[in-house]
């Protein structure tokens, strides 16, 4: 099977030299694509999880009685929402990166910063998407009427029990459509990690076509549709989840 595919693309490259899908028949190039895809997925998954955690924690902190905490959360949101993510990434990696301590690398003699470029990409992108998530969750929480919470209180729920059993499940349902958009945007934004040489999919594809200029068209096509597919899968999954959480009486009119 694999042989057939490989020889098909090898033949294709011979007949149409501009359509050299080199990564479909040369294992070394294939591995580059796979590792790029793996990094992209890893980056996306980790950032999605972290940004959601940041969003929930931030929304919770915004309800804090302390003005200082609210101010800190507010400043964080403002900063990340209102500046280009690319510059944030550069700022984190280059400007803040210079202050991180170094450790001895695995080879035993080079010094490496404890936060790698992948680490900085994760931090930067998570905080970027997290800033939006705070807002999304906060507005979800605000959409839960006080009277419903009062009903919980009158049934003897503590503040924490009310939050986990009533406020959060309802706020989540309200927030999902906006969260959906933001997470999709986050996956798209992971491409910008190329700016600090994170070997994700775009980076690998660009290096492939830099190495083999005949592979340019092929690599671009695959790149384009891979991202469409990734975003599509995420959108599909989120949509499924949204539907599962859908309860009659509110949310999208069915």
């Amino acid at each position, binding site marked *: 099977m694999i042989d057939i595919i490989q020889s098909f693309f090898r033949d294709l490259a011979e007949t149409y030299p501009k359509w050299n899908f080199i990564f479909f028949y040369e294992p070394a190039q294939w591995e580059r694509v796979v590792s790029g895809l793996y990094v992209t997925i890893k980056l996306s998954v980790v950032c999605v999880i972290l940004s959601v955690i940041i969003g929930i924690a931030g929304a919770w902190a915004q309800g804090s009685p302390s003005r200082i905490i609210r101010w800190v959360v507010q400043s964080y949101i403002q900063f990340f929402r209102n500046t280009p993510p690319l510059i944030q990434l550069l700022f984190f990696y280059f400007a803040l990166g210079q202050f991180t301590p170094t450790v001895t690398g695995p080879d035993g003699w080079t010094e490496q910063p404890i936060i790698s470029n992948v680490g900085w990409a994760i931090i930067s992108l998570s905080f970027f998407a997290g800033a939006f998530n705070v807002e999304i969750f906060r507005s979800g929480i605000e959409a839960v009427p006080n009277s419903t919470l009062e009903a919980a209180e009158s049934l003897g729920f503590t503040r924490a029990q009310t939050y986990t059993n009533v406020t959060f499940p309802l706020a989540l349902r309200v927030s999902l459509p*906006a969260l959906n958009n933001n997470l999709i945007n986050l996956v798209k934004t992971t491409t910008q990690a190329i700016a600090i040489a994170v070997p994700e999919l775009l980076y690998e594809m660009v290096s492939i076509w830099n190495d083999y200029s005949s592979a340019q068209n092929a690599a671009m096509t695959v790149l384009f549709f891979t991202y469409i597919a990734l975003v599509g899968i995420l959108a599909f999954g989120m949509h499924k989840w949204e539907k599962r959480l859908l309860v009659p009486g509110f949310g999208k009119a069915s």
Partner: protein
Amino acid sequence: MAHSFNQRTDLPVILEPKFKAPDALGFSRWLVGMPPWALPAVAVLMMLWPIAGHAQAVYSAEKIIDIMLKWLPLLLTKGFLMNVVISFFTMLFGTIAGLFLGLGRVSENGAVRSISWLTVQLFRNSPWLVLLFIVMLTLPFEIRIGGTYIPVPDWMKAVFGLSLPVMANIAEIVRGAIQSVPSAQWEAAQSLAFSRRQIMWQIILPQCFKRMIPPWMNWYAIMTMATPLVSLLGVTELVTLSRQAMEAEGNNPSLLMPFFGFALLIFFIYCYPIARFTLRLESKFALKG
């Protein structure tokens, strides 16, 4: 994107959420929600931090200020101005293409509708950077019109690359606005024997024009924030120039904060009034209906 809340029940089960999804006016609202001093304060802090924190290998405060002042005119005229130029042209092309694509989304012709839908989905859901790379590398460096060759500068190619996602998003704004006009308007115009094209251009579009302006301006701000991406493809703009300037000044780490801080600041200064204006317009239109 307003979530329609079920009307079947009269319970105040859930209040309408105030948050507008990122592709509505969320961005402008945010920019405006920010106290005007917030970002300048952060930027000043960032410029001072390396001076305070990193004693050796650091230029003195005066030296940093000297360097910044020296580069400032160039960063503005050759750098940020380029971001603005790119954003203008991108918005121009994106809007025109988006208008027609949006009309295609509501076309009577099923094939046109499907193709427009597919186009919108493809360009809305792919990363801006991927589109930029593809367009930058596939567009020729000059176009032949008749017998003359017209060179296409890099920044112009970048404009085309950025126009694609803008186009797809504008198309959605146009479609939403058209569909928000009550169908009674269509019927009334039809009964007056207007053709479909006449109804669209003379009756429907003028009505929803106002409605489109705030989200349109919101997208302008979002897209302006994306213009630094073109630096990754070697187009000269603010970030490209900042990095070149730092190189020219010996790549001293203490310059990183001031230069990137300045870049963040300048974007804020530019986008903040736009966001204010967008929200003013929106509330004005909301009042008048």
